[in-house]
C-alpha cells in the first residue's frame, strides 16, 4: 500500500478504451467525482465526435497500450481501469485478428506495465459472464467460483478466459494491488448500442429452434455505478454484475413486441458466418452459444460487498424497450384489444343462440 494514503478514493486514475462508449462514460463520471484528483483517458484512436463533449474534463492521451509503462511511472498513477475490450470483430479494425490483438495482447501489455508501476495500488478490469463458457452440464446459476467446463467456441469468450488468466497471474505477482474483476452480463438500456441491442431492435428476431435460453442483462447506468464504486472504494476480487431476475429469450422478444423466427440448430453457426461475411447480422459463435445455452449468474456477492443492487433484468430490458419502440410488431394494447374482441364476439354468438332456442 502507498504510504500516507487512506483506502478509498485514489489520486490519479488511468482509464483505457476512452474512445469507446463505456470508457468515455466511465472516464467522464470519474472526472466529475471531486474525490479523484486527476483522470487520464488513454486510447490509440481519437474518441468518437459524439463522445468528445463528454470527455471535456478528461485528459486524453493517444497512446498504444504497449507504451503505457512510461506513463504509469511518470504520472504516479495509482489506479488503472481497463475497459479497452472489443466484444465483436469489426472488419474495419482488422476483424477477429484485430479483436484478439486488442483484447488479449493489449491486456498482456497493460498488465506488464502495471506490474512495474510501484505506486499502483488498484486495478479494475472489465470482464464478462462469458468467462463461464458454455456446456450442457453447466449448473443453472453460475457463482464466481464456478469453473468453466468447456472452453467456449466464440472468440470473445476465449479472449475473456485468457484475460482472466493474465489477471490471476498479476494478482500472484502483485498481491499489494487491489485487483477487481467485474464480470458483466450483456449491457442494455435506453442508449446502449451492442450486438444484442441491435438484435432486439429488429422487427423479426431469429432464435434457435427448441431452445429458449435464460438471459440476464445489466443496465448501462448500473454498470457505470459499479465501475465508479470499484474505483472510489476497495473491492478486491471477482464479481458478477447483472440485473437480478431472468428473462427467457422468447419472453424478452414478446415483451419487446417483436416476432421470433426459430431457426434449426445444425449449421446455424455456418449460416451466421455467411451472413456476417455478407455484411449483415454480425452474430458470431458467442451469440449462437448464448442463444442455445443461456447464462444466469448469482449476484449476491456484488450486493453484499458493494451494498448496491442493480435494477432487475426485466426493468433494464423495459428501459431498452421504451427507447426502441420503433420496430414493434405487436403491442400490448393490440393484444388486449384482440382479447376483448374475441370475448365480445363469443358473447354475441351466445346471446343469439340463446334467443333462437
Amino acid at each position, binding site marked *: 500500500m502507498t504510504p500516507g494514503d487512506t483506502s478509498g478514493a485514489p489520486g490519479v486514475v488511468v482509464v483505457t478504451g476512452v474512445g469507446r462508449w463505456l470508457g468515455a462514460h466511465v472516464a467522464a463520471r470519474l472526472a466529475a467525482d471531486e474525490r479523484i484528483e486527476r483522470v487520464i483517458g488513454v486510447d490509440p484512436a481519437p474518441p468518437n465526435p459524439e463522445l468528445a463533449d463528454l470527455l471535456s474534463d478528461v485528459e486524453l492521451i493517444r497512446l498504444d497500450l504497449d507504451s503505457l509503462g512510461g506513463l504509469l511511472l511518470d504520472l504516479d498513477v495509482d489506479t488503472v481501469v481497463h475497459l479497452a475490450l472489443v466484444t465483436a470483430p469489426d472488419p474495419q479494425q482488422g476483424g477477429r485478428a484485430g479483436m484478439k490483438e486488442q483484447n488479449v495482447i493489449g491486456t498482456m501489455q497493460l498488465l506488464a506495465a502495471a506490474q512495474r508501476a510501484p505506486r499502483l495500488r488498484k486495478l479494475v478490469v472489465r470482464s464478462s459472464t462469458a468467462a463461464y463458457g458454455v456446456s*450442457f452440464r*453447466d449448473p*443453472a*446459476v453460475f457463482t464466481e467460483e464456478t469453473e468453466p467446463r468447456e472452453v467456449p467456441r466464440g472468440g470473445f469468450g476465449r479472449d475473456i478466459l485468457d484475460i482472466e488468466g493474465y489477471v490471476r497471474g498479476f494478482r500472484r505477482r502483485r498481491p499489494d494491488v487491489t485487483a477487481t474483476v467485474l464480470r458483466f452480463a450483456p449491457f442494455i438500456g435506453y442508449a446502449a448500442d451492442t450486438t444484442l441491442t441491435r438484435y432486439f431492435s429488429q422487427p423479426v428476431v431469429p432464435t434457435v429452434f427448441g431452445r429458449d435460453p435464460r438471459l440476464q442483462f445489466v443496465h448501462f447506468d448500473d454498470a457505470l455505478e459499479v465501475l465508479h464504486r470499484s474505483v472510489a472504494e476497495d473491492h478486491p476480487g471477482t464479481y458478477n454484475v447483472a440485473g437480478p431476475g431472468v428473462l427467457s429469450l422468447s419472453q424478452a422478444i414478446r415483451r419487446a413486441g417483436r416476432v421470433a423466427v426459430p431457426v434449426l440448430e445444425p449449421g446455424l453457426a455456418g449460416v451466421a458466418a455467411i451472413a456476417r461475411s455478407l455484411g449483415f447480422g454480425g452474430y458470431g459463435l458467442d451469440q449462437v452459444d448464448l442463444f442455445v445455452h443461456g447464462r444466469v449468474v448469482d449476484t449476491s456477492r456484488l450486493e453484499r460487498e458493494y451494498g448496491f443492487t442493480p435494477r432487475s433484468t426485466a426493468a433494464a430490458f423495459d428501459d431498452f424497450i421504451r427507447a426502441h419502440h420503433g420496430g414493434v410488431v405487436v403491442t400490448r394494447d393490440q393484444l388486449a384489444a384482440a382479447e376483448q374482441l374475441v370475448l*365480445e364476439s*363469443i358473447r354475441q354468438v*351466445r*346471446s343469439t343462440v340463446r334467443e333462437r332456442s
Partner: protein
Amino acid sequence: MSSPEERRDARYDVPLGVPDPDAEPARRNGHRRVTAPAARPAAPPDEPDTSADEPGVPGPATPHQPAKKTVAKKTVAKKAVAKKTVAKKAVAQQATADEAPAGKAPAGDTPPGPSVADRPGDHWDRKVAQGLAFLRRRLAGDYEVDEFGFDPDLTDAVVHPLVRLLYRDWFRTEVSGIEHVPDEGAGLVVGNHSGTVAIDALILSTALHDRHPAHRYLRLLGADLVFRMPVVSEIARKTGGTVACNPDAERLLGNGELVGVFPEGFKGVGKLYADRYKLQRFGRGGFVSAALRTGTPIVPVAIVGGEEIYPMLADIKPLARLLKLPYFPVTPTFPWLGPLGMVPLPSKWLIEFCPPIPTAHLRDAADDPLVVFNLADQVRETIQQTLHKLLERRPDPFGP
C-alpha cells in the same frame, strides 16, 4: 389405507367398472360438476366470488346446453386455466385487465363493457375468459420465470392439466403417504425410476402438486442428456427441472424448494422388463451429500406401475450407440407399430411416500463417504421394501 374399497371411494367418484377411462369425455377438464347440471343452482362451492356477487341463480339447465357446447369446444382448444392458479397468479397490474373479462358485472371505470350481459354463474364464461387472459399474458410476455427457467404460469395452465389426464384417468394413480412430504421448507424426494421413457418423473410431480395440501411444485433433477435435446430441454426447464449437479441441487434446497431426484438414472429407466421393480445401483450418492450439506430431510418414494407402460423386451445396443442414446428399446409395440407404439400401456399406478429421513444432525458428515453410502443404502432399502409392499397390493398390473 389398506382396504382397496376405501381407497377407491375416497379418490374416484366414478363407477369403478369402467375399463377404459378414455371413454369419459365428461371428465376431460376435470370438472365433474358439468355432468350434473342439477347441482348447479347450489352454486359451485369452489368459486365463492360468483356466488357472493350474484345470489340465487335460477337458470334452468336446458337452454344453456347448446351455447355451452360451442364454448366448450373453444375452451378445450385453448387449454383453459385451472381456477386456483389464476387466483394465485393475478398480479396487481393485470388485475384490472383480468377483471373485465372475468364475467362479472362491468365496473364503472372499465371503458366499453360487454354489450351482452353475461349469464351469471356460468362456468364456461369464466373458463374462456381465463384462457384468453392466459393467451394474452403469454403473447405479451407478462409472466415470471425463475433463475432456473421455471415457469409456473405455463406449468399450471398447460403441463399439469395434460399430465393430469394421464395420471388420473389413464393410469388411475393412487397416492398414499402424502403427509410425509413437508408443507414448507426444503425436502428431497428420492424415487425409483422406470418405464423406458421417463414419464414417471412428470407423473410424480403432477400427482404431488395436486394431492399435496400446499400444492407444492417438485423441482426435478434431470440427466444432462435431457438438456442436450432441443425442445425437451425447454420443457424440462419450464416445468421446474434443472441439470442434476450438486450446485443446482444445493441451491434449490437452500431456497427451500422440494427437489425430486431419481438416483438410478438411465440404469433405472432403461432396464429390461424381466428386471422390473429391482432397484439399480444408486451412483455415487451425490443426492445424499446435497441433502446433508443443506440439512434437508430425505423423503423416499416408491412408484409402482411405471415398469409396465413400455415393457422393454430387448435393448439394441449397436443402434443405441449409433444414435448416441443410452439404450434403444424394443417393446411389444414400439418399433413394430410405429407412432402407435408410443402410446403407454394403461397400467395401474401406486405411489407411496415414505416417512422422511432427517439429516440435520449429520450436517458435518457431508464429505464422509461412509455416512453418505450408508444413508444412500437406507434410502434404497426403504424404496425397495415399499415397492414389494405395493406390488402385493396390486396383484394385476392392469387391474382397475
